[in-house]
């Protein structure tokens, strides 16, 4: 029978078309031995007893952007949430909500991207589900992703454990994802210099944990940007975080784009970046190890933990100080 080129309601109805979709698109793109058994639930084996378990929902417009797409984003988002708890990501589950009329070719591209990102992270997609909704009820593809990872014995990362004197190390350049997606979504035509940093962080996290055994905490600044993560660490630890603006790694074109659009890079999203809270005597070793890895070559010490009351400050380039505040909602480009 002729294979439909677009997603129909029947693709989510649990009958023949659903079966074809699962076998020909999903299992073919990212199925391992477990998923390919196509049982009602995945049977997996994990030797350790300290597990990290997380779930994420993903909506992004456009579905494809320079440096990534919603499939890569779904895998990296979950992998990174596990990784910054110190866990080694093992098993992932993905739920797809598809809009009727979506081109099958687009779904195939997303599925292949899921497979590639999962392989990059060394995690296996073992379970999934698909539903189809009317075109007006969804924007192309929504994905929820859950993941399980093992936390090695002796590894205890918690943002509540930040102490006075600790240093903040950022693993790479900020604001790459948010600017790339904004450029793609609004057709700003900023140019080819922009790509999302969307990437699994678990390998770099392993590198950080071995280089700095006293590592206190990791956090990945996604939506809400670096500012929100600093405030979260400050609130959880009851300390003050001080960020040195001159030390922030940011590529010149990203900085220029933020200035033109009136965006503060501290609040712009990232998808492949972590902040490490590290005792001062281990910061140098951590920095050296991160910089030796191509994924961490732009790592920098960007601030410190001081006595305080759950607040955060920025030391500005000009030498002033200002408060960091929670700001919700997507940043809006300005008029002039």
């Amino acid at each position, binding site marked *: 029978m002729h294979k439909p080129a677009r997603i129909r309601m029947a693709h989510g109805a649990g009958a023949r078309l659903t079966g074809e979709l699962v076998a020909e698109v999903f299992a073919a793109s990212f199925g391992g031995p477990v998923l390919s058994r196509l049982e009602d639930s995945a049977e997996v084996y994990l030797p350790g007893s300290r597990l990290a378990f997380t779930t994420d929902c993903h909506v992004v417009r456009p579905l494809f952007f320079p440096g990534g797409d919603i499939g890569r984003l779904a895998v990296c988002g979950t992998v990174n949430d596990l990784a910054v708890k110190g866990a080694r990501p093992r098993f992932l589950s993905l739920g797809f909500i598809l809009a009727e009329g979506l081109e099958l070719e687009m779904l195939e591209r997303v599925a292949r991207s899921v497979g590639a990102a999962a392989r990059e992270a060394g995690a296996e997609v073992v379970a999934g589900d698909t539903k189809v909704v009317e075109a007006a009820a969804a924007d192309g593809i929504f994905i929820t992703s859950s993941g399980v990872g093992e936390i090695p014995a002796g590894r205890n990362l918690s943002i509540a454990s930040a102490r006075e004197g600790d240093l903040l190390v950022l693993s790479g350049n900020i604001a790459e994802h948010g600017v790339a997606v904004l450029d793609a979504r*609004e057709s*700003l035509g900023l140019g080819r210099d922009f790509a999302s940093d969307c990437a699994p962080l678990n390998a770099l996290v392993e590198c950080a944990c071995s280089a700095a055994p006293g590592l206190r905490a990791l956090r990945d600044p996604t939506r809400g940007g670096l500012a929100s993560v600093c405030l979260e660490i400050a609130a959880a630890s009851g300390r003050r975080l001080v960020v040195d603006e*001159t030390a922030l790694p940011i590529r010149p074109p990203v900085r*220029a784009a933020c*200035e*033109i*659009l*009136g965006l*503060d890079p501290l609040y712009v999203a990232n998808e492949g970046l972590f902040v490490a809270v590290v005792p001062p005597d281990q910061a140098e070793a951590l920095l050296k190890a991160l910089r030796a890895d191509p994924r961490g070559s732009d790592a920098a010490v960007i601030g410190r933990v001081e006595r305080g*009351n759950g*607040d955060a*400050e*920025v*030391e*500005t*380039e*000009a*030498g*002033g*100080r*200002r*408060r960091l*505040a929670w*700001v*919700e*909602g997507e*940043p*809006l*480009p*300005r*008029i*002039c």
Partner: protein
Amino acid sequence: MNPEPGAFRDPRLARKLVAEIDELAEGRQATFMEVCGTHTVAIARSGLKSMLPASVRLVSGPGCPVCVTPQGEIERSISAARLPGVILATFGDMIRVPGSAGSLEAARSEGRDVRVLFSPRDALNLAEENPGRQVVFVGVGFETTIPGFCAALREARERGIGNLSVLNSFRLVPPALRVVLEHGPGVDGFILPGHVSAILGTAPYGFLAEAGRSAVVAGFEPVDVLLAIRMLLRQEAEDRRTVEVAYRRAVRPEGNPAARRLIEETLETADAGWRGLGVLPASGLRFRKGFADFDAGRRFDLETPEAPEPAGCRCAEVLLGKLGPRDCGLFGGRCTPEDPVGPCMVSSEGSCAAEYRYGQTED
């Protein structure tokens, strides 16, 4: 863009200027108004107030275009978005300004076609790509932005694009400064907007000096602003009042005559209402006869309702510099950037939003 923003953020240069400001300000109190919203943000974001002596006070003025747009014109843009077949185009910071029945963002989530554009020129293409629909651009802005609209409308006429129109909320800066002089707080000097002045030049501000105020056109980097403050203090120390430029890499004293001509050939001055300031003579613009077709207000018979400003909102006094953002009872409680009551909290260039986001740590 500055070729090297780094140099204009150099902490050594900043410290040197602060030391000179300390010296000039010793034994006197000075209140300066930064007129432009972009300055408000630059000052807050670079933490300049933490570096200045307590004797130099900075207050924000009526230079945020979104903030000064009266409530009735906000309502008008939201009703335009709800007209059948209309694509409403707007700059980003307008879409969250609340009207009596939701915002443009709310209209968009109801399924109305509201697009965020970055330049009036983008609206030309949008109109051309959607020949069966009407593109209405919310025309908010000062002298910096207006020439871009004029150029786009002229191009629309040349290209025969008939389905584009503009909701005119254009405003001119100098008339608002006259009101600040008459009714505002005691302002000793003005930090004048850099980009507006790149169009206007210095002559239109001459009345400030005549009224005994110092005035300096400033750029937007921290060192630019500190330099302007030092120049303001020096004018006072030397007892001369004049309009100077501290932003010569962008502003010529004569401004940009070609851009002014573009405005004059397309629009003519008219009385206009300002949030909090009331109707000011010759402070706005209306379409000249040859361009009246582009007036969305006429094309769609849109009314500008008499709309009250939100209860308890003190944006009006904040715009005049009479009140600081934190003096408003709604600040940070009922009114936040996530759920704003007044426009000074909505626009990223509004003084309340800047204070909320960047205000100094209180300890």
